[in-house]
């Protein structure tokens, strides 16, 4: 699953940083019918977790109400240089992941 993440490359210790992630996914609601009137199975990214140097800093549980290609934005406090790791799964069991590193100074 294709995704784009944005984490500042550098930050000062204690600084509040903005983190963004966008994932390409249809987020099929389960409420739609195909051209033959058959229901299209629900398939959304149901869980996304972001860990900062191993510690969970953000978690989202999503359902049918989230638009296709979800875009999430949240904040964290820069504490130490290291890595943000994002992991998510959809209803079909497909997994995705993405990572971004940060250098913290001061």
């Amino acid at each position: 699953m294709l995704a784009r993440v944005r984490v500042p490359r550098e930050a000062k210790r204690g600084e509040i940083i903005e983190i963004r992630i966008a994932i390409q996914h249809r987020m099929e609601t389960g409420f739609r019918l195909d051209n033959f009137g058959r229901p299209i199975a629900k398939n959304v990214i149901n869980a996304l977790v972001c860990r900062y140097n191993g510690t969970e800093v953000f978690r989202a549980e999503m359902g049918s109400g989230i638009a296709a290609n979800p875009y999430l934005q949240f904040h964290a406090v820069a504490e130490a240089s290291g890595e943000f790791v994002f992991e998510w799964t959809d209803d079909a069991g497909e997994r995705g992941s993405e990572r971004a590193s940060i250098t913290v100074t001061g």
Partner: protein
Amino acid sequence: MQADEFANPGMLWVTRGEKLWRTPAGSTGAACAQCHGEAAKGMRGVATRYPARDAHSARLVNLEGRVNLCRTRHQKAEALAHESEDLLALSAYVAHQSRGMPISGEVPAELRASFERGRTQYHKRIGQMNLACTQCHQQNWGKTLLAQTISQGHGNAYPTYRLEWQSLGSLQRRLRACYFGVRAQMPAYDAPELLELELYLAWRGRGLPIETPGVRR
């Protein structure tokens, strides 16, 4: 949303296109990058002069058509399906290299006849509603139609992410939707009629900056 490089969902396709650009394809195993180098250099400005005439076949092609010609002709790969994720991704990636550059709108002599047919089509009433493109996009832009504000109907942001589609879509997909809207028979993708309309739209929108990937309601 469109101006924010990150929030713009169309950028997901551009990112995908960037990956495909470097991926070998077809029996030649050649990647686009192998022949064209860095897209930022080789593809800069290309979208400003499409649709264009393909010299080999003497046919009018749009950017999607050109990508597919490179696939079949130079990569010896299968053509990508209309509106497939990969075709949208590659054409959006190529068009994105011209972001901010003005559409040329120049009509070379050998495309004059196609252009005139496009102009005629643009002014021709079609469908059960008996409406021409010009009646909505030239004479009534700014007014509302049901819940939508009618725009001037330019093609400079395509492929565009439409919230209604929840996806990126080509200019032809949008044009077909306008045919559907006036209850006219939709021409098939790549029909000369649609390509000629694209050519007319490029002239009509000359000077407008390429915005690909646009974001629309």
